[in-house]
């Protein structure tokens, strides 16, 4: 990503705008904007960990009426 114009960044008045130009890499890899929540789950096994995360997704992290959650398990770094 590259910033097209820094002149449009107006902070004091309370309004903010930055214009970006997507580089070729971004066009193929996509850009994602959002919040990330990082937490550690301690569970006896993968199934238990999945169940716990699924419960958190349904009750808190997402609203199942308007949002979908997918859970994927990746090999973690050693503790």
């Amino acid at each position, binding site marked *: 990503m590259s910033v097209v114009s820094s002149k449009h960044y107006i902070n004091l008045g309370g309004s903010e705008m930055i214009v970006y130009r997507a580089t070729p890499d971004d066009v193929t890899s996509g850009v994602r904007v959002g919040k990330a929540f990082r937490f550690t789950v301690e569970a006896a096994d993968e199934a238990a960990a999945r169940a716990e995360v699924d419960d958190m997704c349904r009750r*808190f*992290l997402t*609203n199942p*009426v*308007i949002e979908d959650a997918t859970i994927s398990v990746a090999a973690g770094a050693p503790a």
Partner: protein
Amino acid sequence: MAAVVGVVVFPGSNCELDVVEAVGALGGEGRLLWHGDTSLGGVDAVVLPGGFAHGDYLRPGAIARFSPIMAAVGEHAAAGGPLVGICNGFQVLTEAGLLPGALQKNAGLKFLCRPERLRVEAGDTALSTGVDVGTELTIPINHFEGNYTCEPETLAELRGDDRIVFRYVDNPNGSVDDIAGICSAGRNVVGLMPHPERASHALLGSTDGLPLLRSLLVTAGALTG
């Protein structure tokens, strides 16, 4: 004895004092309740007011539903007690599972703050008892996430059981079926995006919210006999 309406204050609530004032003007007693308490203190009815509880972090209502007082609010509703969620309060009720569906961002992706015309679509609820079906009311809205949505089966159920309490005359936010407010199967829990307490005095430009708040007092009084 006057019916007592408890108004729950979350960090970021607004118009809670307006509700207390309007309830008092109608002959009831409004009492503020703190979200961190675990008891409702014996009130006859509960209002979850508007605002931005917990800053609307994550999603509006997502954190407030875990406030300590919400367990007592749920028990009050399960026992048939009148419970009304206004604006952010409606969002809290859907997040808590006390009303079905969800409120997503307005279709126009703009915050809306203006008087809006509503039609009363169902009677015999905590907020529409004694109000004629078909009555048109002008009551302010003040929200970004007021676009009601739900599963098709839920919508069919709401329609079939006459649980759509208010519809917008000119849908401002993209709500499915022009829904502005709904009620629970027991009709004692009502959620709506417009703010009746902001239309409770001639000085505010409209008194159209008063019949709704009077209904709340009537149902609260009926409960205590």
